């Protein structure tokens, strides 16, 4: 089925993103040094950059694990469940955490504010989806218990 392939593709993409995220943990110190060498600004932000990156990477890996669980549930046909509502809630909060961390870093480099805005926006979208799922769970339960 076309939808099955789509969900499998999503699952594979999540796993690929997870691998990339883990690889980036090792590459980031070199990337930060490269950024410092290439930067035309006088202040050195290597340490705040690395701290921000590692916090975001940790949250990012957590997000990818939650997404993987969510997609696994969807593949099993368990879409509108309390578990998935919980995963969406956690994903939303995780986005807000990234937004907060990058907001702090935006004090050093204003462009980081773009990431703050994007993360906050994603967090809001996920919250709305979570609210829709909550209602869907209620409707499914009502339907299941209609004899």
């Amino acid at each position, binding site marked *: 089925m076309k939808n099955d392939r789509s969900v499998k593709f999503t699952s594979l993409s999540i796993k690929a993103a997870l691998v990339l995220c883990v690889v980036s943990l090792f590459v980031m110190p070199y990337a930060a040094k490269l950024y410092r060498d290439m930067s035309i600004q006088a202040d050195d932000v290597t340490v705040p950059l690395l701290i921000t990156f590692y916090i975001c990477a940790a949250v990012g890996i957590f997000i990818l694990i939650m997404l993987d669980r969510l997609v696994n549930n969807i593949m099993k046909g368990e879409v509108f469940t309390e578990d998935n509502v919980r995963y969406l809630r956690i994903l939303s909060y995780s986005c807000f955490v990234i937004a907060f961390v990058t907001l702090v870093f935006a004090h050093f480099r204003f462009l980081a504010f773009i990431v703050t805005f994007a993360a906050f926006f994603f967090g809001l979208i996920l919250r709305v989806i979570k609210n829709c799922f909550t209602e869907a769970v209620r409707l499914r*339960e*009502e339907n299941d*218990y*209609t*004899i």
Partner: protein
Amino acid sequence: MIIVNLDVMMAKRKIGLGELADKVGITQANLSVLKNSKAKAVRFTTLDKLCEALSCQPGDLLEYSEDSHE
């Protein structure tokens, strides 16, 4: 709250869960949900078949109680 007196009517008619499920055309599991007052809603078609199978009125199967505790 609404109390389902299906078990009372089944006992009166001396009919088992399996037999009633066959007559009504729903699964035993669903009938059990209804019998144990776990159901959130009952379709008119189901109620119609239950009344037909048990030769009773909807009021014999459903009862309203002031107690709202679920």
